[in-house]
């Protein structure tokens, strides 16, 4: 059991985290953040599938992701 927290206002919408999450637990939010990007959003309801592998955080150029396990 693990989960991630995405700081939506830091996120610039590159979607590297979405591309590389091996469990496909991240999607594009349908509401924009303070600067106008559509940030990445963690699928809270699928939290039980997150392994805490940190791949999303490793690829984030804006250090917008924290991982908890």
């Amino acid at each position, binding site marked *: *059991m*693990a*989960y991630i927290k995405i700081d939506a206002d*830091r996120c*610039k*919408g*590159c*979607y*590297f985290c979405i*591309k*590389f999450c091996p469990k496909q637990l991240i999607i594009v939010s349908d509401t924009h953040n303070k600067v106008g*990007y559509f940030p990445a959003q963690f699928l809270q309801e699928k939290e039980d599938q997150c392994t*805490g592998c*940190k*791949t999303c*955080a*490793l*690829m*984030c*150029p*804006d*250090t917008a*992701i*924290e*991982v*908890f*396990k």
Partner: protein
Amino acid sequence: MEKIFTRTPTLTSSETHFCPGCTHGIAHRILAEAIDELGIADRTIGIPGVGCCVFLYYYIAIDTLEAPHGRAPACATGMKRAQPDKIIFNYQGDGDMAAIGTSEIIHAANRGENITVIFINNSVYGMTGGQMAPTTLLGQQTTTSPYGRNFQTEGYPIKMAEMLATLEGVAYSARVSLHKPKNVMQAKKAIIKAFEMQINQMGFSMVEILSTCNTNWRVSPIEALDVIENEMIPYFPLGVFKERTGKDFL
């Protein structure tokens, strides 16, 4: 549950000016992590070149010196010789290091200055609008090579990691990439290795990092990762081109 990944202390909380998806951001993060893992933040001084890395001092909480375009290796030489107990690194782009600063880097490397260089190869002058750099690939269109780089008039993309590896003063020269998770981990290991060379007084160390400039390449951030894989790596192979194991140069 416990927090298992967060921002390393030496990376400031400032939001960066980098374009969305620019891997300069990943390079800054792994550099700060490397500094913290080695526990050298209080004695490390960074010298960013001129280019998109120019605001490094906002993002990495260490002392920095801003060098004129291309001159970071000369500044680092003076800094290291004056304060040999400090860990000195340059962070230079390909326009900065492989064009205007070619002379400085080659002679600093050849003198075996005990400094570390982080070299960001994104195949263009990113900051000024994507002009051709010495690293621009053959056929690559840029604002100053609108028909694609042609070797007959512009020569060939320069391979800095291989070239510097031929110099006696060089202790470590490697090329890494940031386009996949595995590569990001390898890039961080290479940065740590380069700093260890300096800590052990082995001589000059350099890590060339293949990095994206999706804005000037005119592709999406994710497409830019594929450009590294399919276009850059075939010409700029990844690997360690020199790694000194003992002080065999003495």
